[in-house]
């Protein structure tokens, strides 16, 4: 009996102890299990390293990232600025990346095209959000511990963040015109959009404050300086049509700033590191390859599709193929001036593939911009355009025979991603030029034309043309069975000649006749205007600028160019040029701005009202 009751007592006590142990410490049990695992909290970042890191991240969204999708977010705007205009076709095959068909055909309200439009919007506002986060964190850290950052660093950080905020808003402005402007103290993310004039005022205000805060020499080559901010201010002023102010701003940058033209165009778009961020670069996306990111995703992420196809070293994917129209634009007259100006009726008459050996005189920039059949492609051998599997072009019947070239690296540059990720041969650390000094000179010339300074405009255009005359594509021979041997076979004089750039009249060149000369002083404002616009096209072709330029030059001009581009090519030998453009919408008033992403318009709803107003006509 005694044993039994002891036993019962023992068990009862044990159970009670267990139950109370289970109930004990309820608070701790839940709270210790609520801490997020493997992440950082806001407190960890509230210091100098956190502020600098947040700023770094604000630079990164200039191009596509692991988390933004592709390719509408590309830093170069190749979809929005080149394919949408007369510079290039989407290319590749009809069925790859069909959203770009919608962009190219100006079906911008269609769901596929909207996806891309939303990508661009998303990355732009992510950039703004990171820039604003930097400013907020900087202020918080300085308030808590003023000694955490040196004054110089603190000022530059703030200036860089404000500059980046303006940079991203400028991207939004030139895409959509009427956009909401977000600053570091904004908390309502469903703000209404501002009209274009207000956006311009905000941009200039931010760029002015950034210029005050920023040092004259950037803290690092990839960062903004006071001069970057001033140059962008001039760009904004030209876009806004404030030509007199633009002349002042840009003239100041030209004369007092640190920028010069490179000696040769191939030093601007290059994989050779010694030319990275040279004197011509005002702002560039700092692509990096072989940097420890195992998939090469900090390289030219947004450009990865824009390489010759599987017959070439790159292997994929044949997008962004230069148009016949662009190739024709490089033809020059006997004086070495654009045929486009001297013979408006005939410059674009040729439908024929412009191949090596055709000695029609052309601007040497053609072969820095366009890969064409039989011509050396930097130092990758001869471009081959065939109907077979050794072709560098994926589908000639869809995208024509030409390949993009500026964004490709040189074999000898060593800037190619060595391994990892999808298609490392298309990944490189070629700087993606966002604003370069030649662009600035031509913006200045444009403003000078509009303010009546034709001599000044001529001089600036001629600076660019003089540099264009400095070099042309050379043999690029390499002692290699697959690359060098065909070059030598086609051009025996090229044996052993590894030069990628040569003087434009170098005897090694037998595939083309290059000619580019300077203008005498422009005779009239109308001529000057056309000359400046043509020069912009030739110099900045395939750099994602063209469509924004056309829109800036007004509905009449843009519609004439683009509609002519569609219809003028109607008789081409390559029938698909017609076929997939036959469904393109005519360029009309509404195409002066891209439509806002419908998704974002609907997400801006507050109490049944859509705060974001869609652009007119969409």
């Amino acid at each position: 009996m005694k044993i039994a009751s002891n036993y019962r007592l023992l068990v009862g006590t044990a159970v009670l102890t267990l139950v109370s142990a289970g109930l004990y410490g309820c608070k701790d049990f839940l709270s210790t299990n609520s801490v997020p695992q493997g992440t950082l909290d806001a407190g960890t970042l509230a210091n100098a390293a956190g502020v600098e890191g947040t700023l770094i991240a604000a630079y990164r969204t200039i191009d596509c990232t692991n988390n933004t999708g592709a390719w509408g977010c590309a830093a170069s705007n190749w979809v929005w600025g080149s394919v949408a205009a007369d510079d290039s076709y989407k290319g590749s095959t009809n069925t790859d990346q069909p959203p770009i068909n919608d962009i190219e055909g100006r079906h911008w309200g269609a769901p596929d095209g909207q996806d891309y439009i939303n990508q661009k919007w998303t990355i732009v506002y992510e950039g703004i959000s990171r820039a604003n986060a930097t400013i907020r964190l900087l202020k918080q850290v300085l308030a808590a511990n003023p000694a955490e950052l040196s004054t110089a660093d603190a000022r530059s950080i703030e200036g860089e963040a404000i500059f980046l905020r303006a940079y991203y808003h400028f991207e939004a402005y030139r895409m959509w015109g009427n956009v909401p402007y977000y600053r570091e103290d904004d908390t309502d993310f469903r703000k209404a959009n501002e009209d274009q004039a207000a956006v311009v005022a905000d941009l200039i205000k931010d760029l002015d404050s950034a210029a005050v805060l920023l040092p004259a020499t950037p803290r690092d080559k990839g960062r903004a300086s006071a001069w970057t901010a001033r140059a962008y201010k001039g760009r904004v002023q030209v876009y806004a049509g404030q030509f007199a102010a633009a002349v002042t701003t840009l003239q100041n940058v030209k004369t007092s700033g640190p920028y010069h033209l490179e000696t040769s165009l191939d030093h601007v778009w290059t994989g050779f590191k010694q030319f990275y961020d040279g004197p011509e670069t005002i702002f560039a996306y700092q692509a990096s390859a072989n940097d420890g990111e195992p998939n090469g995703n900090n390289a030219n992420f947004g450009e990865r599709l824009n390489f010759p196809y599987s017959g070439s070293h790159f292997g994929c994917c044949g997008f962004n193929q230069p148009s016949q129209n662009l190739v024709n634009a490089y033809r020059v007259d006997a004086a070495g001036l654009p045929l486009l100006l001297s013979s408006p009726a005939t410059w674009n008459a040729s439908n024929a593939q412009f191949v090596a050996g055709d000695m029609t005189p052309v601007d040497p920039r053609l072969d820095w911009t366009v890969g064409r059949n039989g011509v050396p492609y930097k130092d990758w051998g001869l471009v081959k355009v065939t109907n077979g599997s050794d072709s560098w072009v994926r589908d000639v019947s869809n995208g024509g025979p030409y390949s993009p070239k500026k964004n490709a690296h040189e074999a000898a540059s060593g800037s190619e991603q060595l391994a990892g990720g999808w298609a490392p041969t298309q990944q490189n650390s070629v700087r993606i030029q966002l604003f370069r000094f030649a662009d600035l000179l031509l913006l200045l010339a444009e403003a000078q034309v509009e303010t009546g300074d034709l001599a000044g405009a001529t001089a600036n255009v001629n600076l660019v043309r003089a540099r264009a005359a400095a070099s042309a594509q050379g043999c690029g021979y390499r002692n290699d069975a697959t690359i060098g041997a065909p070059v030598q076979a086609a051009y025996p004089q090229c044996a052993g000649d590894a030069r990628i750039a040569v003087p434009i009249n170098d005897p090694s060149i037998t595939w083309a006749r290059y000619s580019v000369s300077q203008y005498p002083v422009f005779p009239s404002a109308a001529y000057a205007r056309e000359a400046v616009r043509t020069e912009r096209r030739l110099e900045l072709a395939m750099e994602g600028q063209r469509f924004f330029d056309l829109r800036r030059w007004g509905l009449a001009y843009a519609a004439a160019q683009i509609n002519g581009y569609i219809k003028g090519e109607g008789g081409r030998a390559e029938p698909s040029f017609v076929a997939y453009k036959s469904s393109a919408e005519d360029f009309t008033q509404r195409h002066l701005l891209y439509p806002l992403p419908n998704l974002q318009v609907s997400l801006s709803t507050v109490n049944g009202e859509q705060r974001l107003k869609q652009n007119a006509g969409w």
Partner: protein
Amino acid sequence: MEKKLSARHEVRNRSLHRVCAVAISLLLALFVTGNAFGQNLAVQGTVTSTGGSPLPGVTVRVQGTDIRTITDNAGHYRLSAPGDAVLTFSLVGQKPVQTTVAGRNTVDITMAKIAYLEQVVVTAYTEQRRGDITGAVSSVDIASAQKQTGASVLQRLDAAVPGVTVVAGGSPGARSTVRIRGISSFQNNDPLYVIDGTPVEESYLNFLNPDDITSVQVLKDASASSIYGSRASNGVVVIETTKRGVQGPPQTTLRVRTGVTSPVRGYDDILLTNSLAYFQVEKAAYVNAGLAVPTNIYGDPNNPTVPAYIFAAPGTATATDAFGRPTAVNAALYSYPNSLIMPGSAGTNWWSEVFGHGQVGDYNLDVNGGSDANAYRVSFNYFNQKGTAIYNDFRRGTVRANTQFNRGKLNFGENMALALERHYGGIPDDPGGYAEDGILGKDILMQPVIPVFDIKGNFAGGKSTTLGNQTNPVKWAFTHRDDVGKNLNLFGNVFGGYDVTQAISLKTRLGFNTGENTFNGYSPASPEVAEATFTDAIDENQNQFLDWTWSNTARFVKALGSHNFDILLGQEANQGQNRFLTGHLGNLLNNALDARYINDALGDATTKNVSSTGGKSALLSLFAKADYNFADKYIASFTVRRDGSSRLAPGHQWGTFPAFGLGWHISNERFLSGNRFLNDVMLRYGMGVTGNQLIPSGRIVSQFGGERGETYYDVTGSGNNIQAGFRQTSLGNPNLQWEENRSQNVGADMVLFNGNINFVIDVYRRNTNNLLFDPALPATAGIASPPIVNVGKMRNTGFDLSVGHTASWWNVTFNGSHYTNKIIAINGTQTFFYGPISTRFGNQVINQVGSPIGSFYGYVFDGFFNSAADAAAHTPAGNCGVSSACQDGASMGRIKFRDINHDGVINADDRTIIGSPHPKFTAGMDLGVHRGNWDASATFFGSYGNKIFENQMEFYVFREFETNVKQDLLANSWTPTNLNPKYPRIDINDTFSRALSSYYVKSGTYTRLRNLQIGYTIPSQMQYLPGARVYLQGDNLWTQTSYEGLDPSLPAANISGAAGDVRDQYRGVDRGAYPSNKIFSVGIVTTF
């Protein structure tokens, strides 16, 4: 050459393997069972039911010995026993009978059925008489569910339980997605599984051998499930494995089943397999677009020929024809991987190259026994299913030990299972996203002209222009044959109970689920495709987890006259943690299996990528349940549970979940007693609240982070040196609280017509409030994951019913259910959001207030443009916008869309809801007959009124990426003389007709014979295998559907958002799923 041989060898040898497997398993069964009986004094007799019909399958035992037998189909048994022996008779569903032999030679027995409402059901923490249950609880007919051939017991719950839907792919070991009574939330809608009292957050249950399961109860409404309050809002499935021995010496049961599988349908039934026939489609596409037809593959378009070679690397061709096609090659110049040569194929049947016969084997052996003081059961299982796709293989071995010891008032024991699963072949058990990859998506849409192998036996591919850029699916399967996913689980619990008094008992139980999931995979180089790659890589990951639950309950049971009280008090703590490690290495120097490790020396160290993540969460609970029964007439039940969750915000961590149920056993009222029509009727009403907190841990606070590929930047301009960057990765919500599901249920359990018919019906309404969801923020807020908020609302209404009849020689059970799902609110202001993923042509799913979750969305198909005038009227040139809407790309033979908003233009605003993936009605039916020693059963399942978005049309109708096409595409496409076609005009420039529209929406209705089994019980007087039952079985033998795609039974896609599993936003989209299996098998069950 080596690859070629091994690839084909495997396929051919399968038929030999399965013959061997069948033979060996039968021999094994014979051998093990042949010597089990000795001779003694003969006793025989017949067991009948109270209605007088013979009862087969009754276990007859001589108590205290290992002498036993089973009655044959005439209810007859024969055994030998001592004259004073005690015989016990037992059969599931019948009250057991004990009797003494008392010198008789003939002992005939009548067994009474356990009345429906008398059945004992394990629900929550306790066992209950069905007649005491006031909630909606369905029991699964285990015998019927175990007839299925598959790794998981969940696979066929839909046919067995009304109100449950299950979708699963046909890959061995594939996940079954179970939904109870509709869908209650935008995410994480898996029910809670409680196995032997331990909650499990896992939805495969592959580690659980179906053969070990004693009972499965589905708790469908809050009054039944709210005692599991915290996680019960999606319903609860209570599974018991507590099969334990009955008193007596060891009893051994062997169950063996082995069979042959094949896909219910193949793409070769749908797609072209002839190269020249394919060319005619390609030709039409160019001709109709006014383009020149490519000649690089088939030569002269008017006299096409199969090419000698589809690809010859530059320099390898020694002769070409007029079209530049190589006609002769110098094979000596072939080199892998840089200089390949591929022949042309007159027609490769890609489907049959990849899919064919599989094989399944299920082997169970268990031993059980016990005495008054203890009971035990030990079981072993080996399950092996080779998929119908080559190299796809699932293997599982489990060992289980269940024991229980009684020492007076104290009892204790354990249930424990160790399971090891291995999945080979790299086919995910739960494929998600967009199925272009692997062998199941569009790779089965390869053009027939592409051969499987090149001239040297390496794998070929579509390397030339117009051949697409597809990966050879045979190569995919071959190179992933060693990809292996392993799951090691140790699952179980230990428990102890103490009966303090007769009325009060205490119980404590510690349940645990711990183990490890690993995966090793290989990605090959692919030089054979147009966009060639020359590097390979390995991926390896490992997830370790530990989840434990400790529950303590006290139960008080007391009867005071007609008043019966049953009160339960309990407390529970649960903690879960996991840690996930993943690694990647590219450019392997040696790709041999033994060298596939993440190690700098074994590949290119710069491609190495290793990272880890983890999670922790905890729950604390207190609960009580009180049942009151007055004279078996009036029944009331009250439950309350209070839960604290670590996932929710301080101050909102604790939630209270009350419920009550009322039952009126109306047939026990005097005015109905003795009613022959209404033998037994109970009316039930219940209402209550359940909760949901299943979101990622740590979402109360904002989180920051950054990856090298998205926040790091080379700001110094070096070209190869990135600086660290940080961004906000997710926004926290310091007010996160419980999601609540309020449900009401009215039901009736009826036994009618002299006990001949069982009828159960339940009608319900479930409202989800404070729905946990992360609605999208405008992009102006950045890309950080939006905060999870408690704003959404959803409603499900519906009914479930079940009707059963058992006659002397046949029985039938019919289950039917219907639900309506409706989104009531998203975030207060937003009226819709799109589905979680989009296809190449956009997003075809919308979640919109007022409509069901995951509705299909797009344009409305309005026929074809049948004339030039019709097309012109829809273009600006034809002055559209006035009398007819402007439609981009309007042209003869293309698809016309409807101007929904009548604004004169077809644009995004004309998209509307074009269908729902939710069935209007689902039904299951079990039929059984037995005659003499023969028995047969059949299970049907049907889904009615659901729609399928046939996304594969993107490929096999619209030829995205130059894929293969449907066999009838050319004959049934629009032409000027075929104005009533099935398909639009074939036109390579028609990028308009393919816009997502109701043209893709098809009826998903189907009826399927899930299972057909014919069995024979070997008479007990037979010398060998007495009492053993052998059977032949067919799974999925017959399907009736109008769906033209592969298989109307589509699995849900595995899609996750930042806040959890969002697969319910993407149901019914056919993206190319592994088809269901048709299985023929033979089996034997024998006890000795």
